[in-house]
């Protein structure tokens, strides 16, 4: 009985320590943020007062929130670009939590929590589903918040035609279909315009990767001696991609090329090829210039990498949003930064290094 009691005291003690530790940790962060905010506000108030004296026009402060799709190098890069531009333009920039997994059930709660406190003028969001994000984003739009979708879009991505998903200001992101088409051309060139190819895709619910697959399919169809043997969906899990590609390699021993539509599918695909001892025999084209894929390119495990420009996507999103908020200028419905190709020849080129996601 006595032992139990002392044990109980220890439990109570530990409980209180743990609680104090955790909350002071969280508290510090919040306090620091609050102090910063307060300081910024003070500054703003002072500035405003000065300005009012001078020209009697009070400038409004804007707050932009970035809601990413998943914690990966592309999304971090996009956030960095957006943050840099926001600082340049002098607008407040907030980042919501980077989700652990890709999908609406992870993203929507984050989106809602991040907007609960209010005070947000523009949301830059990478919608993880073409359908599931429509209702919650529409709700925020109806409260007067402007929406820009970056990298991925809602519905079919055409915001210029009136529909239940046409409310975002703009889509800022790569022309995924064009990228897919050009990858098909590069693949054809590498393979001498003949052979069997395969698409290792991720999510049929995500606009960007679907368009890449469509572009590649169309591109390959132009070459009469090339056949597309299939398209698999790994749902953004690298291990699944590896298993799926391994199965395809078994089924089609003459397979000549694989297109991995993003880093998870490309990394899974090349790993399967390496494991089968087919490095260099089966060509791998991949999307997204992550350090891992660039290294794989240097090692000869990957043959082609398309680099998007996430930093620019972030910058362009903030710029378009700022112009709309501050000056009422409606941006283009589609804002498309270009892309670059990394090959074994140009991977060490100093000019190309800026396109690697850091």
């Amino acid at each position, binding site marked *: 009985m006595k032992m139990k009691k002392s044990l109980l005291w220890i439990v109570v003690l530990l409980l209180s320590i743990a609680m104090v530790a955790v909350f002071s940790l969280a*508290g510090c962060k919040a306090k620091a943020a609050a102090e910063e905010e307060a300081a910024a506000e003070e500054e703003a108030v002072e500035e405003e007062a000065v300005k009012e004296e001078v020209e009697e026009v009070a400038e409004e402060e804007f707050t932009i929130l970035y809601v990413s799709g998943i914690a990966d190098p592309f999304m971090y890069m996009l956030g960095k670009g957006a943050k840099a531009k926001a600082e340049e333009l002098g607008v407040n920039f907030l980042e919501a939590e980077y989700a652990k997994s890709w999908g609406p059930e992870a993203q929507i709660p984050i989106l809602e929590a991040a907007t609960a406190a209010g005070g947000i003028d523009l949301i830059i969001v990478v919608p993880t589903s073409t359908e599931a994000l429509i209702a*919650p984003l529409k709700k925020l739009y109806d409260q007067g918040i402007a929406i820009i979708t970056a990298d991925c879009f809602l519905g079919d991505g055409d915001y210029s035609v009136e529909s239940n998903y046409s409310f975002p200001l703009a889509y800022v992101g790569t022309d995924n279909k064009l990228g897919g088409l050009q990858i098909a051309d590069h693949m054809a060139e590498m393979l001498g315009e003949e052979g069997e190819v395969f698409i290792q895709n991720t999510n049929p619910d995500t606009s960007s990767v679907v368009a890449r697959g469509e572009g590649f399919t169309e591109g390959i169809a132009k070459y009469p001696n090339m056949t597309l043997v299939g398209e698999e969906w790994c749902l953004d899990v690298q291990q699944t991609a590896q298993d799926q590609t391994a199965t395809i390699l078994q089924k089609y021993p003459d397979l000549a090329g694989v297109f991995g539509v993003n880093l998870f599918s490309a990394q899974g695909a090349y790993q399967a090829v390496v494991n089968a001892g087919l490095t260099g025999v089966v060509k791998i084209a991949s999307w997204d210039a992550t350090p891992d894929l660039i290294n794989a390119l240097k090692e000869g495990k990957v043959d082609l990498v398309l680099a998007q420009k996430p930093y620019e996507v972030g910058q362009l999103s903030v710029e378009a949003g700022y112009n709309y908020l501050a000056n009422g200028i409606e941006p283009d419905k589609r804002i498309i930064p270009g892309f670059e190709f990394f090959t074994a020849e140009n991977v060490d080129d100093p000019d190309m290094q800026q396109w690697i996601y850091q």
Partner: protein
Amino acid sequence: MADITITTRKNGLQKFFSQLGNRWAIIFLFLEIILFSIISPGFFSVKGAQVILINSPFILFLSLAETFVIISGGIDLSVGFVMGFSSVVSAKLIVAFVGLGMNDLLSIIVGIVITLCIGIIPGLVNGILVARLKVPPFIATFSMIGITHGISELLIKGSYIRNLPPIAGRIGNGSLINIVPGKTVSFFISPTIQRGDQLIEILPTVFVIPFIFILFFAFILKSTKFGQHTYAIGGNVDAAIRAGINVKTHLIKIYMLSSFFSTVAGIMYVFRYVTGKADAGAMFLLDGIIAVVIGGASLYGGIGSVWKTLIGCFIILVMENGLRMLGVPTFYKLIVIGIILIFAVLIDQLSPELIHREE
């Protein structure tokens, strides 16, 4: 004289611990709310509460399912994937019915009814395995994870279900009462509004539905013969048999009930996210079990209640959403919940009732 004072003091302390054992969860919840209100701007607001409630249905339903199973002395690991299974089945059915030219709302209703009937089958199988064939609940329900997950993946061929009618999303993202001042009032379904209109929302639909279930089943568990038998079986199976309770049939009913709740959770998922997904419930399964244990139920059976589970759920929900509003990674939640779970079990073992039972 001295002796007497010591004894009374001992009794006082014992009382204190016994009270702490019973109440620490609710005290912790209040502390949590107070702390987040202080450190997180915008947390203590109508909007903040809405965010917590709108994210609550899955953990509420899954923990309600576990409450019954755990009190009866078992455990149901399959709830998360039964939820995914039913989200896939209902979404597929609704899309199919709409495709056949049926009215949107009618398709949804028929789809739900059929899903509810299909959704209790995993529970029936679990129940028969556990009660009649004496398979340990852990193994029986663990196999059901694989079976339901596999079937759902086959149904959707490793993808998602698309093209659900937009009305589904409006129900899942609407509130009990939606008021656009001076214009419209709607119930359960979010209204179509013009940009800039003020929208007042009272209680998210996806919280109202589980809450009605909670009210009803809290009554069932506490005040009906069904509930009393559940406690009796969990407390002491042999005694329950001697008392003339049909334990086998009762356990089958419990597992079917658990499956039923998981199925409703899956249907809620379809409304909230306008899609069906095979692993929809994977991230809610553990939270569901943890909420029950934090709420003070004993994993040995016989102890627990729906209201205590509700407190456990809100400890997790407040933690998760509070951290999100702060912008702190929710990884902290995993650590804190882990620590709380250990305490919950330790306090459970130290509680006087259990000590007496051991003696």
